[in-house]
């Protein structure tokens, strides 16, 4: 029976179309209080006073809580995956507009909201820094001292560092870039920038903390239940098993809901009042929780006339906002791919994570990769143009082939870079004549490819439970937020145990029941948890066979599980539990050279091709064709895999063409869906989504992760196509009509006036 590889609807489809799927958004408990948050109005300042008297006096208010109250409960109330730098409620100072300063609890959320309006705070305002380039200098310092978490060994040396905004710097040196630049026929340098944008899941951040008898249960819309458990336990100084984290369906994540977001506040408030507390943020508040790093990427290449890239130097500045979140990891793990999927002998990379007085930045569908691809694929296109070589040919000449060493020194394996490039070119019909339009409507086309390493080393544990009638349950802490992981795992279990996929049920993450998983992030689950699931199912199969032998059934026959149980126990009784842990091997990059010969368990490859029209009178860009291709290994559920590619690419269209958090004095001035425009149904261009035939030999059934690959190529493919159409180069995201018109007018020697 071939279960894996068939396209089937997700297991939970019925619950979702009937509106009966449960989300944390819906959780209501007896005696539950709603918490609403009073937030900082200044970007950087010392707190002089917080006046909560009027709020406290409002009828219906149960309690008003400040940072000082939290400290009485939790002496060190700072959290974060890489740095313990983020206070549950601000203590002494605030570092960004929107930072939580106080919280009001009430039975009625409207009363709590009204009370928040009655709170006032006085600050001694400090100068603020918003720009990553400016933050490289210690003129304005966001944090007095760096406080790395113990979790990551390579951050330890930063402990106690003062007078800096650099929360991590990663450097890689390979060969001799300076000497190679000196020898190259041409040396070309560009700077590219990306904007601050954000995830905006439609189920905004929400958590309900429920104190119980010897256990605190946290119901949360979160992608990392195991991490939340560990972190909440650490904050309270408890053993892990006193915290139970439950995650039902998730109304979107995209990397926003990784690590601790509102869970620590909900937990602290619940423990203060010994009642269930729900923190449910609004869409507007999401603009003050977590975002995508703005970046400035200076990239310089030495090329020879024949089109070979001889050397590349990359300097990437990551604007991490007020708290580190997972930014230092982005800086390193994405940083080492900054030169792109190219075979270049001489490479230098300098990648810096920076604190600024903006909303913190973390991981957003690609973990920094889309920002890098934006720069290196725009740059690569410019190199090809400069040398007069076709952009596809130029890439073919330079791409990393199987077995060749990537910048870190890790040899490429099961990385279908050439195949993805070929697929994009083929789907674009690249060699056919192309009509570039005339008059005021000009047409262009562009391509781009990108790659990404996986998050390593990370651990996943799975449990497969075969009941006495043969029906099977899988326990994992992977959070299925629509990517189809539950269904993919069910297919794997069914494949191993030779049963119908509908015979497998998946238990949603509940840390009292489901085992450890590092988190549902970075496209890691299908590979890591998928391997654990496969091994756990194989363990169950082995145990079933042993049980059959015990029951005296002759060997060599595949008995249905129900028959084995009945024969062994005389009735429908017993269980077989299979379990497995998967953690790939890994070698951390050398702290001086940045090199490692085993830096990732697998590579993700994504490419995009775009055809578009530019209206030369308005700068408006209309995408007429979008081609996506990705190396997904062997897809487990190809239909769902294609929707992942498509969804990721459309999301990236928003980040490319419209989405942009506008700041004024640190305040976001477009913090609503009315003013911050995400893609709607009218914005969808004709698209194709191709799963490139490949195999990840170390992946479960040849599969690898694919949730992010569709984002990689979109932005630079669009900029490259605009250049192809009208000969102007956009170097900063988003690519608005205004940006294109400004570039066109500048090129014509009649620039538009500044705003």
């Amino acid at each position, binding site marked *: 029976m071939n279960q894996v590889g068939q396209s089937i*609807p*997700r297991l*939970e*489809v*019925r*619950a*979702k*179309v*009937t*509106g*009966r*799927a*449960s*989300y944390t*958004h*819906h959780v*209501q408990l007896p005696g539950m209080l709603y918490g609403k948050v009073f937030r900082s109005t200044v970007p950087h300042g010392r707190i002089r006073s917080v006046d909560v008297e009027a709020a406290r006096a409002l009828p219906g208010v149960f309690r008003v809580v400040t940072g000082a109250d939290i400290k009485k409960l939790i002496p060190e109330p700072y959290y974060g995956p890489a740095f313990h730098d983020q206070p549950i409620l601000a203590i002494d100072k605030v570092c960004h507009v929107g930072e939580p300063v106080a919280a009001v609890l009430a039975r009625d959320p*409207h009363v709590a909201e009204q009370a928040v309006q009655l709170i006032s705070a006085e600050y001694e305002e400090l100068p603020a820094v918003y720009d990553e380039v400016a933050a490289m200098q210690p003129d304005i310092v966001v944090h007095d001292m760096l406080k790395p978490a113990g979790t990551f060994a390579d951050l330890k040396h930063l402990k106690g560092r003062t007078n800096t905004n650099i929360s991590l710097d990663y450097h890689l040196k390979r060969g001799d870039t300076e000497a190679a630049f000196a020898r190259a026929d041409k040396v070309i340098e560009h700077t590219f920038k990306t904007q601050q944008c954000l*995830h*905006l*899941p*439609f*189920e*905004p951040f929400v958590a309900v903390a429920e104190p119980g008898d010897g256990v605190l249960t946290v119901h949360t819309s979160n992608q990392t239940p195991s991490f939340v458990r560990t972190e909440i336990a650490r904050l309270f100084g408890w053993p892990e098993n006193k915290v139970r984290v439950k995650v039902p*369906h*998730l*109304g*979107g*994540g*995209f990397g926003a809901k990784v690590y601790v977001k509102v869970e620590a506040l909900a937990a602290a408030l619940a423990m203060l009042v010994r009642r269930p507390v729900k923190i449910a943020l*609004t*869409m*507007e508040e999401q603009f003050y929780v977590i975002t995508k790093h703005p970046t400035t990427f200076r990239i310089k290449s030495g090329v020879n006339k024949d089109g070979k890239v001889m050397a590349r130097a990359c300097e990437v500045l990551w604007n991490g906002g007020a708290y580190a979140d997972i930014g230092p990891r982005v800086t390193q793990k994405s940083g080492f791919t900054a030169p792109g999927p190219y075979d270049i002998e001489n490479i230098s990379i300098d990648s810096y994570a920076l604190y600024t007085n903006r909303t913190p930045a973390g991981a957003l569908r690609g973990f920094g990769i889309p920002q890098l691809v934006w720069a290196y694929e725009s740059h690569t296109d410019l190199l090809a143009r400069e040398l007069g070589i076709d952009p596809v040919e130029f890439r073919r000449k330079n791409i990393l082939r199987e077995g060749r060493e990537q910048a870190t020194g890790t040899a490429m394996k099961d990385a279908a870079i050439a195949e993805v490039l070929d697929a994009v070119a083929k789907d674009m019909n690249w060699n056919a004549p192309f009509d570039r339009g005339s008059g005021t409507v000009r047409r262009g086309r562009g391509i781009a490819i990108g790659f990404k390493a996986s998050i390593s080393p990370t651990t996943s544990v799975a449990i497969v439970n075969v009941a006495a009638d043969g029906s099977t349950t899988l326990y994992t802490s992977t959070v299925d*937020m*629509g*990517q*189809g992981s539950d269904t993919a795992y069910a297919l794997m279990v069914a494949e191993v145990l030779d049963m119908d996929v509908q015979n497998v049920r998946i238990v949603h993450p509940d840390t009292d029941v489901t085992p450890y998983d590092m988190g549902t992030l970075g496209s890691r689950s299908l590979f890591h948890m998928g391997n654990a699931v496969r091994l756990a199912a194989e363990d169950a199969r082995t145990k079933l066979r042993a049980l059959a032998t015990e029951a005296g059934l002759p060997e060599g026959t595949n008995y249905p599980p129900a028959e084995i149980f009945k024969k062994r126990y005389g009735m429908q009784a017993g269980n077989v539990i299979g379990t497995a842990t998967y953690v790939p091997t890994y070698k951390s990059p050398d702290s001086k050279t940045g090199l490692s010969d085993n830096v990732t368990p697998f590579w993700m490859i994504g490419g995009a091709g775009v055809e578009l029209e530019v209206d030369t009178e308005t700068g408006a860009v209309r995408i007429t064709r979008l081609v996506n291709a990705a190396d997904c290994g062997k897809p487990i559920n190809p*239909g*769902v895999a294609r*929707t992942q590619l*498509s*969804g990721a690419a*459309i*999301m990236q269209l928003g980040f490319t063409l419209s989405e942009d958090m506008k700041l004024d004095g640190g305040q976001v001035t477009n913090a*609503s*869906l*009315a003013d911050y425009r*995400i*893609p*709607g*149904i*009218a914005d*969808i261009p004709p*698209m194709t989504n191709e799963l490139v035939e490949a195999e990840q030999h170390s992946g479960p059934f040849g599969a690898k992760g694919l949730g992010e690959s569709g984002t990689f190529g979109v932005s630079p493919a669009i900029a490259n196509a605009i250049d192809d159409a009208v000969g102007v180069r956009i170097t900063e995201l988003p690519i608005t009509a205004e940006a294109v018109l400004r570039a066109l007018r500048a090129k014509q020697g009649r620039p538009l006036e500044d705003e």
Partner: protein
Amino acid sequence: MSTRTITFTLNGQPVSTEIEPHRNLVELLQRFDLFGARESCGQGLCGCCTVLVDDKAVSGCLYFAPWVDGKTVNTVESLDAEGALSIVQQAFIDCGAFQCGFCTPGFVLMVHQLLKEHPNPSDEDIKHYLAGNLCRCAAYPEIIEAVKVAAKSAVKPAAA
């Protein structure tokens, strides 16, 4: 806070309740344990809270609860009240027209309204009717396909 008594028909059943005048329709529905309409953007822009009031789609987050007094309210939960999925719901499943599912009830209801008014919708009709429903997972291509698949069958009306 003063309350008002309202009486209305909810998913085919006559009901009555006390409600404060500032509550919105989403909150009202939660009192009846109906969670298919979900407040997300709070501005009537995303369509996650779509509800049919007297057969017309409204944003539950912007619709004051007392306004339903004397009216007929149908939520997504009415569509499979007898256990069978509507043709639109089945088409969404067949086309894989969602990922996280949070916005799906709103889309499903809006497609019911669309097909009632335009049994054979053009691409323009589809985009026009669904312009007020956003999907952050961006299952739009699959949603458009689902509408077309559903249109090929006779649509079971949302308000039976």
